[in-house]
C-alpha cells in the first residue's frame, strides 16, 4: 500500500485504528517530497524536522484517545499564511526573510488539533494570480502538464506530496490552479474562515480555503479551520455546521442553475462540453437543470481588478523597507529608502497592480472607476441572490481554457468564471469533470448560497463518486 495515495480521511481511519503511526506516515511523505519535489517544486520552505516532532506528539495524543479530526494529518500551508518562527515569504523578494512573530488564526487552530506541517508552499507574490509566474521562488509545474505553471499547494496534492493543502483564494487564485491540477478545492463564503495572519492581497476577496483529493476531505479540512475569530472582524459569527452533513444525500429534485453567461464565447468549447456533460449526469441523478442569467458578468473582470488592485495598492504600501522585509542599501533619505526598497523587491506584477490601484483610487478617477466597481459588486450580489431564489446551487466552468495561460491580459481574462462568486462573497467548490486532449484536467465549480458550504460539498461529492480520475502522467506512475 502506498500511504501517499491515501485520502485524508483514510489516513484518519488508519491512525485511529492503530494500523499505522503518524511517524510512519510523515516519514513516507518526507521521502516522497525528497523524491519528487525537485522536479516540481512545490515548497518554498520545508519543515520536516518540526513535522517529525509534531508527529510524535500526535502519536501520543492518538494513543491517549485524545485525537481530533486532524491530529496527525500532514498538511502543507501556502506561504502567505503566517507561521510563528517559520519563514513566511508570501512568494516575494520583499518578505524573503520575514519570520512572523505570530501564528495566523488558522495555524493556531491546526496546531491545537495536532495537525502536522510539512512545509510552506509556493505562490505568486502576495497571492497575485494563481500561476507562480509572479513568484520570486520560480515556477511550480503542474504534474499533468509541465508547461502549465501552477501553485505549490495544488501541484503538491496532485503529486501526492501531501493529502491536503491550505491556501487562499481571491478571484480564482486557488480554485483555478487546483482545477488545472485535477484536484478538488473549496473557497468558503467570505467571512467563514478567519483571515488573521493571511498576508493581505485583495482584502475583500481574500479567503482561506483548501485543496484536497475530493470534496469529502475538503469538508473535514474546512471544519477544522472555519469559525468566528475576534482578530478578524470580517469573519462571521455564524455557527459552523458539520460540513459533511449533506454528503450522500440524494440530488432528486435539486435545482441546479446554469447561468448562460458562463457558457458563452469567453469559454473554450472543450471546457463547456465537459461541464455540460457533468450537468447531464446530475440530471440523471434526479436534479433539475435551469437556465438563468447573471447580466453583470459582463463587468466581472474589470470589477474584480479595479477593487483588487485598489486594495493591493494600499495593502502593499506598508512595505517601505523600515520595519520588516527587504531594505535597499546605500540609502541617504527616507524617500530613497522607500523608492529603492520597493523598486528592488517588488516584482513586475506587483508594480503593475500598485500603479493600477493608485490610478483607480486617485481623486480624478475614483468616481469613474472605483465607485462604479463597487456598484457592480452590489449589483452582482443581488443578481446572485435573485438566482438563488429559484435554485439550490449554480454550476459553472472553473477555467475559461484548458491549456496553460500565457501573457498578462490572457491571465486577467482567465478568471472570468472564477471571479464572480468571489466578488459576490459566495462559497464555491471545484472538482474535476473531465480531461482535455492535452491531458490537462478540466474543472467545474459549484457555487452555493452564503454559508451553505454543506450543500455544494454534497453536490460535488455525488459527482465524484461516479467519476474516474486519471493520475498525473508526468510522475511516471510514481
Amino acid at each position, binding site marked *: 500500500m502506498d500511504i501517499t495515495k491515501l485520502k485524508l480521511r483514510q489516513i484518519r481511519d488508519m491512525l485511529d485504528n492503530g494500523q499505522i503511526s503518524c511517524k510512519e506516515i510523515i516519514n513516507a511523505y518526507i521521502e516522497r517530497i525528497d523524491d519528487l519535489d525537485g522536479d516540481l517544486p512545490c515548497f518554498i520552505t520545508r519543515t520536516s524536522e518540526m513535522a517529525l516532532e509534531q508527529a510524535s506528539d500526535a502519536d501520543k495524543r492518538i494513543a491517549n484517545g485524545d485525537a481530533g479530526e486532524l491530529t496527525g494529518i500532514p498538511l502543507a500551508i501556502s506561504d502567505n499564511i503566517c507561521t510563528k518562527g517559520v519563514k513566511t515569504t508570501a512568494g516575494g523578494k520583499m518578505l524573503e526573510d520575514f519570520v512572523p512573530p505570530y501564528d495566523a488564526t488558522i495555524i493556531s487552530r491546526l496546531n491545537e488539533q495536532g495537525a502536522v506541517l510539512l512545509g510552506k508552499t509556493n505562490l505568486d507574490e502576495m497571492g497575485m494570480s494563481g500561476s507562480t509566474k509572479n513568484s520570486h521562488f520560480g515556477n511550480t509545474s503542474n504534474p499533468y502538464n509541465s508547461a502549465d505553471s501552477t501553485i505549490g499547494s495544488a501541484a503538491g496534492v496532485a503529486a501526492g506530496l501531501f493529502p491536503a493543502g491550505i491556501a487562499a483564494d481571491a478571484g480564482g487564485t486557488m480554485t483555478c490552479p487546483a482545477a488545472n491540477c485535477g484536484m478538488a478545492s473549496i473557497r468558503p463564503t467570505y467571512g467563514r474562515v478567519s483571515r488573521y495572519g493571511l*498576508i493581505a492581497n485583495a482584502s475583500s476577496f481574500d479567503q482561506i480555503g483548501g485543496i484536497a483529493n475530493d470534496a469529502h476531505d475538503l469538508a473535514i479540512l474546512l471544519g477544522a479551520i472555519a469559525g468566528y475569530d475576534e482578530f478578524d472582524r470580517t469573519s462571521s459569527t455564524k455557527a459552523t455546521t458539520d460540513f459533511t452533513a449533506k454528503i450522500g444525500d440524494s440530488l432528486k429534485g435539486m435545482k441546479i442553475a446554469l447561468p448562460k453567461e458562463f457558457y458563452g464565447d469567453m469559454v473554450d468549447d472543450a471546457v463547456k462540453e465537459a461541464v455540460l456533460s457533468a450537468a447531464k449526469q446530475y440530471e440523471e441523478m434526479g436534479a433539475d437543470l435551469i437556465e438563468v442569467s447573471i447580466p453583470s458578468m459582463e463587468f466581472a473582470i474589470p470589477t474584480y481588478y479595479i477593487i483588487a488592485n485598489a486594495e493591493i495598492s494600499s495593502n502593499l504600501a506598508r512595505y517601505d523597507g523600515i520595519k520588516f522585509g527587504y531594505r535597499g542599501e546605500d540609502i541617504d533619505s527616507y524617500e530613497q529608502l522607500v523608492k529603492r526598497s520597493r523598486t528592488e523587491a517588488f516584482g513586475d506584477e506587483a508594480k503593475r497592480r500598485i500603479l493600477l490601484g493608485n490610478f483607480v483610487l486617485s481623486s480624478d478617477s475614483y468616481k469613474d472607476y472605483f465607485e462604479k466597481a463597487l456598484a457592480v459588486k452590489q449589483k452582482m450580489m443581488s443578481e446572485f441572490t435573485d438566482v438563488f431564489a429559484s435554485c439550490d446551487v449554480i454550476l459553472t466552468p472553473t477555467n475559461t481554457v484548458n491549456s496553460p495561460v500565457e501573457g498578462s491580459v490572457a491571465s486577467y481574462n482567465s478568471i472570468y468564471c472564477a471571479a464572480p462568486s468571489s466578488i459576490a462573497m459566495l462559497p464555491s467548490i471545484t472538482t474535476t469533470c473531465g480531461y482535455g486532449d492535452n491531458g490537462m484536467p478540466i474543472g467545474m465549480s459549484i457555487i452555493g448560497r452564503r454559508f451553505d458550504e454543506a450543500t455544494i460539498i454534497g453536490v460535488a461529492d455525488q459527482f465524484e463518486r461516479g467519476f474516474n480520475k486519471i493520475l498525473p502522467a508526468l510522475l511516471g506512475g510514481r
Partner: protein
Amino acid sequence: MFIPVIGLEVHAELLTDSKIFCGCSAEFGGDHNTRCCPSCAGFPGTLPMLNKRAVEYAIRAGFTMNCDINKLTYWDRKNYFYPDLPTAYQVSQLYLPLCVNGKVDINVDGEGSKQIRIHQIHLEEDAGKLVHDDFNNVSLADYNRGGIPLIEIVTEPDFSNADEVKEFVEKISLLLQYAGVCECRMEQGQLRVDVNISLMRQGDEKLGTRAEIKNLNSIKSITRAIEYEIKRQTEILQNGEKVVQETRRFNENRGTTSSLRSKVDAHDYRYFPDPDIPAVTITQAELDSIREQLPELPDTRLERYIDEYKLTPVNAKILIADRAISDFFDEAVKSYNKPKSISDFIIVELLRRINLGELDANAIPFSAQEFARLVQAADEQKIAKNNAKTTLRYMIETGDSLDKIAEENGFWIKEDREKLVSTIDKILAENENVVAEYLAGEVKVFGYLMGQCTKALRGVCTPQSIKKELEDKLGKLK
C-alpha cells in the same frame, strides 16, 4: 481692511484603556516601542479590531457639541507614506463620519455670545512618533502612540480672530473633559490644533486663499500663530500679491510660520472604504444610553451655581473649570448645604494647595463629605478658622481624618460652660481696675478683657460664646 476667516481641525486623543484597533495600552509614554504589537505595528497579515469604547467616546464628544450622529458609519483608508505610519495608511473617516452638524457657543469678553458650527467629528487612529537622533544622524520610529484613538473635530470657518479661537479651544477642552473622553493636556499632545486661515476684503463674498498651520500644541502657540499669520497675509495682500495655498508650520522660538508644502505638492490621499473594518450600525437605544451617561455639562452647571447657589459668576467659573473640582464641590454641597462656604473654602484653600502642586484634583485623598464636615466645623466655630486651614493641610499631607487631626492637635472647641464661667469670673476678679474703668464708661477696655479671656479659653469655647458671657457678666455688674 481685511477680515480674517478661520476654521479649525482639532485632534483629541481619547481616554480609552486600549488602542483603537488592538489590545495594546493607550496610556501616554512608556519606553519606546513597548506599547505596540504586530497589529498596531502594521505587520503583514494582521487585521484591525475596532474598539467599541472608542466609538462610544466619540459619540459622547459629539453629543457635547450638539452633533447629529450617523447611525451607519464606516472607516476609510487615507493613504500616504510616512515612517511613523506603520501601514502607510491612516484609518480615518471621510465619506460617512460618526458625528455631523454640531454647534458650540462661545463667549468672548466684550463680544458676547457666538455660535461656532461643527462640520463633523470623525474617529481615527493616531500615528507613531519619530525620534530624531542628530548625534548619530538617524531617525527612529516609536509606535507607542500609533493606534491611539483620536477624534478630529472639524469646524466651519466661523472664527474671525485669535480670541475666539482661544475661547473655543478652551470650551471644547472643558466639554471633552466633562464627557470623560479626553484630558486635553496639550503639553502631552492630547489636544492638537490645525488652523486654516484666510483673509477676505470687507464686502467680498468669496473667501480668500487659505493657509493651513499644522500641529499647534498650546493655546499660546495658537494665538501667536494666528496673529502672525493675519499680519503676514495682510502684508501680502496690501502689496497686491497673492497668498499661496499651502501648509505651514509654526516656529515657537521665532513666533513665525513657514511653508511646509504647497498645494502643488499636496497629497492625493486616495481615500477608500477600509475592507477590513465592517461598517458599524448604532441603534437609537444605544445612542440614548450613551446620552444618559453624560454628566451635566459645564454651561448648565455654571447656570445652576449662579442661579441656585447664588455664587458669583467669577467663582462659579473657577469651580466648573475643572470637572473634578466641580464634582467635588457638588458632592460637598450635598452633605453640607452652604454652597458659598464650600465654594470659598475650595477656591481659597483647596485650589491653592492644588496650584502649589501639593495634590492632584483627580486624586484628592479625602471624600467630599469629610471636606464638607471641615467647612461646617469652621462655620460653626467648632474649630478655629486658622486651625481649619491647618487641618486641611494635614489632611492633604497625612491622609488622616478630620477627627484624628483635630483631636491630636487640640483643635476642637469643646464649649465647656463651667470652665467658661469660672475662667471669666477669675479674670474679672484679677482685673478689678480695668472692670471699674469699663463700668465708668471706658468701653474700649472691653477688648483687653476679651483678649485675656480668649487667651485663657482657647479650645474651650468659641469667641462668640466668650464674648457673650463676658458681656453678660459685665452687664450685670453695671
